[in-house]
């Protein structure tokens, strides 16, 4: 934290100054030090990086922004039709990457219409119906590896279950999970200048093409799911533009895939490093599963933050803001705020008062939070029951090089005492599950279908 040389005029309000580059590889390695610097006296500061933007790192400050209503905007004005705001990414994606990030890059009332259409598919009651489905995908993933005594928890489990389940809820055929999986993960971890990028862009284009085709299909032949909800929605009597609907479906993919993978991988890596805590969690799961899940969410915060644009001159949290100022809300740093969390850099599986911000705050709270929790908990329990002595291999573990977008992992290999298969492999299981989706209408909203999935 420093005071800028130019402390006159408009520069005077942009204090205190920090250098904050969350896309730099160093940030991942110095996350705790950097976070402590913010909490030591500048929980709301100005950084000159990426064209200059505010950085909010304190829990109190984030809550103030969450309650600021129309003073902040999520809008991404891709075509320059409104005020030119750049949405939730800092820096904004290069021009020509022309899709709004769904309803996360919209403001009310438009945003509210989308959330209203999708909520009945994603509420706690809606997700609870899917538990047998999630269990069955998880069982099949573990069965593929259990006789070998070796697994990559990312490639063989945590990449697959969230992907298959997200597609099921959307109403997209389960067998397409790999088509969606590659861009959803590689698109996040591949550096822009890498030789791999051309292939990733191609995979991303194929995914967008399939999303667009899905939208046409459900219009022609309705089938239940989130895609159908979007295809049928209207705002003030009018259907939204196809590009906005495609953006919303891509947002559901991005939100549903890489984030839960990241949470699960980090939690399993931590539990491998802390075997006594792993045993305690397994033994006392009735008491600890919820608090441990929230603690892993707090500590690892897979989606580390979101950008906003200040929509009018105003004062928030004691600072003066000008219309057009960019702002980064760091959910990850606020989750280490010592004013809210005692001993914030320690994992406490029984932590009380854990009002973390891993799903954001305010009207844009992660709409898939109930999905993430359910999928994480089921995968964790299956692992604790079926491969309880797993040991992760640090040599083969690959974390994302940068954590500016998702704090994720590419590989997490582990060994364990081999066990017995319980049922068919993944391909056959997905066929069985696809039939269940089609016959029972599993992807209907909870307002239409109350019953739990029946799979046996």
């Amino acid at each position, binding site marked *: 934290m420093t005071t800028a040389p130019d402390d006159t005029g408009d520069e005077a309000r942009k204090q205190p100054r920090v250098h904050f580059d969350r896309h730099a590889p160093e940030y991942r390695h110095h996350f705790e030090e950097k976070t402590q610097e913010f909490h030591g006296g500048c929980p709301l500061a100005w950084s000159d990086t990426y064209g200059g933007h505010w950085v909010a790192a304190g829990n109190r400050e984030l*809550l103030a922004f*969450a*309650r600021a209503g129309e003073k902040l905007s999520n809008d991404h004005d891709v075509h320059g039709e409104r005020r030119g705001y750049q949405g939730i990414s800092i820096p904004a994606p290069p021009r020509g990457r022309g899709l709004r990030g769904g309803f996360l890059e919209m403001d009310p009332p438009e945003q509210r219409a989308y*959330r209203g259409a999708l*909520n*009945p598919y994603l*509420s*706690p*009651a*809606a997700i609870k119906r899917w538990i047998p489905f999630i269990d069955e995908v998880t069982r099949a993933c573990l069965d593929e590896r259990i006789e070998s005594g070796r697994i990559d928890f990312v490639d063989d489990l945590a990449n697959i279950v969230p992907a298959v389940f997200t597609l099921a809820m959307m109403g997209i055929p389960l067998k397409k999970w790999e088509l969606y999986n590659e861009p959803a993960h590689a698109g996040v971890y591949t550096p822009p200048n890498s030789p791999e990028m051309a292939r990733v862009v191609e995979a991303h284009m194929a995914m967008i093409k399939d999303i667009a085709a899905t939208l046409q299909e459900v219009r022609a032949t309705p089938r239940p799911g989130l895609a159908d909800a979007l295809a049928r929605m209207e705002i003030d009597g009018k259907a939204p533009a196809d590009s906005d609907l495609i953006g919303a479906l891509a947002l559901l993919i991005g939100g549903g895939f890489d984030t839960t993978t990241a949470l699960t991988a980090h939690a399993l890596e931590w539990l491998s490093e802390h075997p006594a805590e792993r045993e305690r969690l397994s033994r006392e799961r009735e008491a600890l599963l*919820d608090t441990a899940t*929230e603690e892993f969410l707090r500590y690892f915060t897979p989606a580390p933050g979101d950008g906003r644009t200040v929509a009018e001159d105003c004062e928030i949290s004691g600072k003066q803001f000008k219309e057009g100022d960019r702002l980064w809300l760091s959910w990850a740093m606020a989750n280490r705020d010592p004013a809210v969390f005692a001993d914030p850099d320690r994992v406490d599986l029984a932590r*009380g*008062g*854990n*009002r*973390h*911000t891993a*799903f954001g*705050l*305010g*009207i844009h*709270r992660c709409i898939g*939070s*109930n999905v993430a929790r359910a999928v994480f908990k089921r995968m964790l329990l299956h692992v604790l029951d079926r491969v309880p002595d797993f040991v992760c291999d640090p040599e083969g573990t690959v974390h994302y090089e940068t954590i500016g977008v998702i704090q994720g992992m590419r590989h997490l290999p582990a060994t364990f005492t081999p066990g017995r298969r319980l049922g068919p492999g993944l391909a056959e299981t997905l066929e069985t599950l696809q039939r269940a989706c089609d016959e029972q209408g599993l992807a209907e909203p*909870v*307002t239409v279908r109350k019953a739990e999935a029946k799979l046996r």
Partner: protein
Amino acid sequence: MKVRVDPERCQGHTLCAMRAPKVFELSEIDGHSSPVTEDVPADQEDAVVEAVRSCPERAISVF
């Protein structure tokens, strides 16, 4: 002890219902919370205090 959930502040994080499932019910549609009754049973007071401490939006008040 009485409890209230501010519907303007509640965003459906669901932590209150994890901490005090007998006191808070969640909307089937969007997971937003409301107390089953305003009066908190004596044996639920600790759980409700923990729910207040756990709410990310600070939407719950006891009085």
